């Protein structure tokens, strides 16, 4: 069995709701990373019953905005030389760029290639965002 508990420098994404691990894995583009990445699924957890967990051994600064969107309850641990540097709770981002897609078939973004569509958070509870162009609400 691989020992994943010792991380020289990297990130541990903990308390991922069971089943969301793979989603996060692909959204962060971890399959394209050259570094060591471990995705653990269905890890027994006292708090959550079952959880997913991701360990990434890397120097790269990852854009973690997407995490807040997929699963705002995860904890991100930044590790250096096997020591926990800091722990971060995530929040839903106020503005999301380039991750969401507008659901409105009449939206101009369906007809023109627009890379940088902004979505503005309108409801924390329902995780709903509003398209900057047509105002249609959408969620992840």
């Amino acid at each position, binding site marked *: 069995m691989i020992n994943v508990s010792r991380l020289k420098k990297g990130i541990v994404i903990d308390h991922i709701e069971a089943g969301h691990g793979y989603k996060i894995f692909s959204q962060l583009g971890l399959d394209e990373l050259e570094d060591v990445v471990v995705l653990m699924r269905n890890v027994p957890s006292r708090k959550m019953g079952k959880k997913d967990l991701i360990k990434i051994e890397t120097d790269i600064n990852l854009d973690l905005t997407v995490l807040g969107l997929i699963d705002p309850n995860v904890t991100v641990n930044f590790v250096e030389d096997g020591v926990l540097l800091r722990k971060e709770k995530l929040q839903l981002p106020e503005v999301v760029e380039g991750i969401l897609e507008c659901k409105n078939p009449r939206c101009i973004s369906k007809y*023109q290639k627009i890379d940088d569509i902004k979505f503005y958070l309108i409801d924390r509870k329902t995780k709903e965002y509003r398209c900057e*162009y047509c105002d249609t609400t959408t969620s992840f």
Partner: protein
Amino acid sequence: MLKGRHLIEPSEFRIDELEEIFGLADSIIQKPENYSEICKNKLLASLFYEPSTRTKFSFDAAMLRLGGQVIGFSDPNTSSVAKGETLKDTIITISNYVDIVVVRHPQEGTAKLMSKYALVPVINAGDGGHQHPTQTLTDLLTIRHYKKSLKNHCIAVCGDLKFGRTIHSLVKAMHRYEGTKFIFISPEELRIPRYIKDLLDPDSYRETTSLDEAIGEADILYMSRVQRERFVSEYEYLRLKDYFILTPEKMLMAKEDMIVMHPLPRVNEIAEEVDDDKRAVYFHQAKFGMYVRMALIIKLLGLE
């Protein structure tokens, strides 16, 4: 300052900024000759990606009456814009030629997209079912003209309140004014959407299915048509379209100084006999539409 700004949706101008536009429109109405050359040597591009003769004429007339000139198209199929050029490239190019751009497009959000790349002010002349801010400005100027203010009115809106974009914009715009009350008159199936009601103080509106019951209370009656394409079946359309028709008999129950408005064109929701009633102002709205566009163009160009 309105100079250099875009107008994409009606609520992006503050109340005092709207007042600037309406005040100027008043002056134009009083002495149009004072403004007949203010836009001399200015050029407006009128980009109509779908035909809308009414709106196009209103903008063209506004610019020409200010002494400016207009270039553009009203049918994208006959112009080079159809040949796969992106809207971004089109607007950047056109921005080089003109001082102000008016755009109408069937897809929602187009004016917003173009305004991001435009080097000159962009006015949204309708983007699908989304926004049509100059229609809202027209409605506000009309109310302000006949009722002398935009405060403390009871506005009854009648018809298709579920899909009617004009009505949603009007409600959003009017609820910002002090003392506004709304009565929403519609069949159950076409009630005003939740998200609009959420904007309003619960004491400031009520809903009813009876025009008869509500008409006596209204200072302004805003009628709207019921569009065939909104319905799943012809039967549903026929059942609901005649639900609320304004007749001379109903007008007897209305206040002496009530005004009846309608975005036009009407189908049959207002009986023709009502046209002769002095309270029917819907045919004059078009004139206010032109004046408000004249004032808007002057303000966005920073000419006054």
